[in-house]
């Protein structure tokens, strides 16, 4: 087997990245007898889009849920700009600028748009100190509209319920929730899976524009054309293990697919560490 030494080529538009913005080291996670992740490492650089691919049950979503604070790893550590972090809840991860856009959008369709955008980050007016404060609905609505306008989305009134919106509009709300609050790392889990062709290409545009805003992204998808059109680097998972990590220009779709199916024995391509 040939071991390839692949070094990451930092995209042209970004500043000198001396260190990764994110390092996940030796992450393992078991669900009962099932080992979902086996000593997985992940690095993400400033203003980089990392594609994460793998067959079903490869552990991609588990790894991302750990990063988003939804799950806690059994072993391993997360470093944000070389500082060790431990996320006890999604709130902790979000406070560090880590946001996730879920495949099903994770919206509360019974609630108004601004309520969804500001969920768990509500703007309040203090009446009697912090213990008694009320929602500042006007500001929530105004700021939600502004965030959505920045995405070139017009939804009309932010007082509408999320369930009244079309699929594409709902995703815009989900993205607004992720991008509206100084995000540093955005995780996108199969974001185009439930979208039409036009909406999917708009989403790819949004994802592609993230590095220019200084945001790094991890993009999970089964669609190789998406991965190859927007990602700078791609990481392959197979049954809970990392089996490949490549600069996108130096790998072909075939090689990736072979690795996804056959793992390390794929086609002579060895797992590569990018350090």
């Amino acid at each position, binding site marked *: 087997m040939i071991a390839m030494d692949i070094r990451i080529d930092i995209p042209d538009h970004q500043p000198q990245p001396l260190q990764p913005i994110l390092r996940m080291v030796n992450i393992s996670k078991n669900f009962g007898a099932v080992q979902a992740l086996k000593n997985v490492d992940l690095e993400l650089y400033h203003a980089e889009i990392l594609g994460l691919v793998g067959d079903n049950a490869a552990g991609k979503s588990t790894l991302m849920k750990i990063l988003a604070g939804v799950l806690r790893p059994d072993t391993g550590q997360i470093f944000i700009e070389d500082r060790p972090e431990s996320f006890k*809840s*999604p*709130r902790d991860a979000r406070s560090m600028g880590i946001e996730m856009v*879920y495949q099903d959008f*994770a919206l*509360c369709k019974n609630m108004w748009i601004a*309520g969804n955008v500001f*969920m768990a980050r509500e703007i309040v007016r203090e009446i009697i100190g912090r213990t008694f404060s*009320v*929602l500042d609905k006007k500001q929530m609505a105004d700021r939600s509209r502004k965030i959505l306008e920045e995405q070139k989305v017009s939804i009309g009134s932010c007082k509408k319920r999320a369930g009244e919106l079309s699929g594409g509009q709902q995703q815009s709300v989900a993205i607004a929730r992720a991008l509206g609050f100084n995000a540093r790392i955005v995780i996108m889990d199969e974001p185009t899976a439930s979208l039409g062709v036009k909406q999917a290409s708009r989403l790819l545009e949004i994802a592609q524009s993230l590095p220019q805003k200084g945001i790094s992204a991890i993009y999970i998808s089964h669609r190789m054309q998406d991965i190859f059109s927007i990602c700078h680097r791609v990481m392959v998972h197979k049954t809970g293990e990392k089996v490949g990590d490549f600069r996108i220009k130096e790998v072909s779709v075939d090689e990736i697919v072979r690795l996804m199916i056959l793992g390390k024995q794929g086609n002579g391509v060895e797992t590569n560490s990018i350090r």
Partner: protein
Amino acid sequence: MKEKTTTGIPEYSHIPPERLVKRVKIISKIQGNMILSLAIIILSIFLSFKTEGFFTTYNLINVLRQISLTSLMAIGFGIVVITGGMDISMGNVAAMVGMTVAGLFAIMKVNLFVSLVISLALGLGIGLLNGAVIAYLGVPPFIATLAMMFISQGITFEFTQGYPIYEGLTSNFLYIGQGYIGPLPVPVIIMIAMFILAHFFLNNTVLGQHIYSIGGNENAARVTGVNVSRVKLITYGISGFFAALTGVVMTARLGSAQPAAAGMDFFLTAATAAVLGGTELSGGVGNMLGILLGALFLGILNNGLTLLKISAYFQWIVTGILLILAIVWHTTQKSASGGKY
């Protein structure tokens, strides 16, 4: 040009589709509280003509007083149901707290204020215990509160041996259930105050928003950082508090603490009011105005049927039929609007 489609919705061929969609949305929006308000108005007009004495200040205040106790319980029940939860222990907790307040005040001669505080705190504590079992031990709400229903019923009967307490409940205590402030009975004022408070809480506080978010999509609430377990804990605390408040006011209103005064029957009436008022048992949908209207509708209906000299048993039949009709109406409206809220 109007023809029936296979879905049963009339098709207006001359109206552009986007306007039709808008119309369906408007209809589905007005369905809840508006339909209930209309039903109340029609029922009231009907009863005004058919009975003597329905449309009198005395009778209307009487209706309000009758609904005040079920409404207090329905408020707490509604808040729990909005999270997608369930608290069937409320009736028995109300009975237990009703006995407790009488026991403290009338038998143990504890100061009125202290008796009230201890009793309401007991309800709150039981609710929090329910919440802890549900939120942190993962027991389904129905089972957890069913268990609490048996426990509270057992405690009530074990301590009272089924005997009521009626001696020693002096006028300062009875004022809570029988007094007036101006023309309005105190229980009605408590009910109105609690409706306003609960409405404000649900619509204008972070916790209120989180209650709706958990009922709408618990997973979404969790992954965005809502502390789901804590919110559930507090919510059951709230329902326990409202059960306790109902129990206290009931004891004061009846002038005696009856171990079987509240219970499953009473609880189910409160639940009916909440469901008639548009509270969805699947969670995420419901509001205080709807619950008030639901209780008011039930109150007027029962009052009217009594004035029409129709038996109490028949009233149950009518309530049952109405409940089914309300749910069917609601489901039809929801599917007409494409299942959207």
